[in-house]
């Protein structure tokens, strides 16, 4: 049992913390959000120089071989900085699937440039009718001679507007779940872009008889690989939420100490002290769950998914609690766009809506309550 960080991990967190402080101030963040999505940001360039784009991938595919803890540290820092870069959606998730499923040619074409920061990708797994179920999808992949034809629609595809290609899940003729690399300029692919309420870049995709050659197909049955990658994504999200919760707690505490009412700082009121402690309790318990998630990725699938579901559900509740308290304890200021904590609060509440919410994951834990443990 070891919760300590290696020297390299300590250096990594120090570097990231400095980077966030220097490069992701509220003003800089606003500018990043207003920049065109098709331009590579200077921050992404810095990520590439720091090796962050190589970190989460195995050495066999050209990565640095970082483990769950490394990813946790990176995501926690990005959560602290409320960084608008699609590190998870544009790099980790599609990259992980390419690493698991792609052949040498596919990896050379799509994964290598991803790691070099030459392009970004996206993963289109979600359909509104399937809610959070990654397997219950309607988009179809039909065999047509030597080619594949994709028909259907995908919603809430994060980072699609900046992606050179989108990995699209589709149900194949033979019933298996397929995954296809669809280049951004593919004929029949159309995109409607928007921002989510927590400032993520997202798109709805329509696939109208998109015809793809065989080398766009990533493996015959991708269900297990998809589960593994989504587990990785959930662990990453938990860590990001913990980072954002840390800052929400810090900013709230600072505000309570500084804001004077009735001739005394708010922090002198016991009812507010106890609320603040409750936020802290939720943060520390969520941190434990994020650690559990990050260190469970190599477990057998059933155990991994049970723990990940537990962690994601727990962090979802904790994040919402911290967000709501942060707004309440900031009083009217917490309701304003100007007050930076409100942006953290939005991210923390909406965190639950990515990769399965509390109810989705509680159901998984409930379904496996007695058999796994």
């Amino acid at each position, binding site marked *: *049992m*070891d*919760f*300590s*960080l290696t020297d390299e991990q300590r250096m990594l967190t120090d570097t990231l913390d400095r980077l966030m402080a220097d490069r992701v101030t509220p003003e800089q963040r606003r500018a990043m959000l207003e920049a065109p999505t098709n331009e590579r940001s200077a921050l992404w360039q810095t990520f590439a120089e720091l090796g962050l784009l190589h970190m989460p991938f195995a050495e066999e595919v050209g990565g640095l071989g970082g483990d769950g*803890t490394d990813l946790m540290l990176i995501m926690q820092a990005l959560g602290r900085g409320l960084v608008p870069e699609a590190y998870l959606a544009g790099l980790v998730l599609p990259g992980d699937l390419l690493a698991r499923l792609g052949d040498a040619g596919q990896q050379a074409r799509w994964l290598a440039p991803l790691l070099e920061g030459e392009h970004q990708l996206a993963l289109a797994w979600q359909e509104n009718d399937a809610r959070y179920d990654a397997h219950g999808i309607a988009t179809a992949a039909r065999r047509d001679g030597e080619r594949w034809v994709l028909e259907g629609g995908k919603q809430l595809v994060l980072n699609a507007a900046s992606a050179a290609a989108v990995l699209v899940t589709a149900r194949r003729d033979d019933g298996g779940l397929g995954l296809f690399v669809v280049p951004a300029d593919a004929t029949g692919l159309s995109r409607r872009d928007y921002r989510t309420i927590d400032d993520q870049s997202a798109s709805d995709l329509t696939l109208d008889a998109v015809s793809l050659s065989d080398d766009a197909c990533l493996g015959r049955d991708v269900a297990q690989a998809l589960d593994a990658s989504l587990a990785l994504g959930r662990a990453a999200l938990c860590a990001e939420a913990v980072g954002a919760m840390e800052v929400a707690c810090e900013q709230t*505490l600072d505000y*309570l*100490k500084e804001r004077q009412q009735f001739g005394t700082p708010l*922090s*002198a009121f*016991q009812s507010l*002290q*106890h609320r*603040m*402690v*409750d936020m*802290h*309790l939720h943060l*520390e*318990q*969520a941190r*434990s*769950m994020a*650690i*559990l998630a*990050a*260190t469970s990725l190599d477990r057998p699938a059933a155990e991994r998914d049970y*723990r990940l579901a*537990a962690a994601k*559900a*727990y962090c979802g509740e904790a994040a919402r609690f911290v967000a709501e308290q942060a707004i309440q304890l900031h009083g009217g200021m917490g309701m304003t766009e100007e007050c930076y904590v409100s942006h953290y609060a939005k991210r923390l509440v909406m965190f639950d809506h990515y990769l399965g919410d509390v109810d989705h994951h*509680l159901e998984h*834990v*409930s379904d496996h*309550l*007695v058999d796994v*443990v």
Partner: protein
Amino acid sequence: MNLNYTPDELAFRQEVRDFLATELPDDIRERVRLGRRLSPDDQLRWQNILSERGWLAPNWPVEHGGPGWGPVQRHIFEEECAAAHAPTIVPFGVNMVAPVIMRFGSEAQKQHYLPRILANQDWWCQGYSEPGAGSDLASLKTRAVREGDHYVVTGQKTWTTLGQHANMMFCLVRTDPDAKKQAGISFLLIDMTSPGITVRPIITLEGAHEVNEVFLDEVRVPVANRVGEEGQGWSCAKFLLTHERTGIAGLGHAKQALRHLKSLATRVQHRGRPLLELASFRQRVVKAELELMALEVTNLRVIAAARDGGVPGAESSLLKVRGSELRQELSDLTRRALGPAALPFFPDFLHGDAELDDPAQAESAAGAAQYFNRRKLSIYGGANEIQKSIVAKTILGM
């Protein structure tokens, strides 16, 4: 980072498990499993078995007869004991007064008391709380007036757990009424057989005689029984509180309670189906499962920090709050799972030696009583609200 136990730690767990399987007497195991109170003789029988094995005092350093375990081993031991339905040892000697004597006591006190504690020769109780001093412990009023080689102690202590069996009490008394609140307090070891001591039972809401009032009327205590300097009692008390908080999350007990709850709710039927399949009930069990998972990792974080040389500080307040809340929730769910069977109340069975003819009734007898008993978890050792104030002050600087 990893959450895995080392091969040595796993071997240790097996060693503890084997020991408990062979050495824990069946009658004691069964009483604990059914939630029945142990007689003092049964309690001592088990503590003597532990003592012979050298495992009575997991927190003690080797030089005083401890097993030399680290925080991880102590945690494993606690978990396995709870899982095997071993009795919790009476903590007042081994875990509470002993560390204070080791830290502040004279050589003579160490040589006299520590071996006796390790051999279960004294039954200690705690003289801290008073009717007017609960969470605000430092406002205690019990007076100790110096007369030659003795203090003459007069006052009243309360919530004295198992004081009815005790022959020794460690006690906070006020030796200087003029000094500032904390500064006038001293730490005395008092022979409970001294003239002037009266112990009166307090019966708690579930009908148990667990706690007592202790009246002290001009009790003569040798000055040699003072631990530390006069006026240093508050330092002893604070030091002791950090020891009281090791294992404070009660994780082993919570795990055992959840296992029991799942098993119970699988056997109990609701409209011909296991109760555990009733959505509203199952949801609460799921939430408890999640809370336990989080608490276990938090607990391991604190244990690992202690192993690596850190001092368990205010984090233990977090563990106390969440651990007690979880155990209370589990006791609530267990009571509810029993349904109508939670209502019959057999105090002579739970607290004494009367037997019940119906085995099913014996299985469910303790459910409601334990639910009420567990309300104490968020009150004793510093109420949860006090813990939150401690965190606000020491961690958050509010």
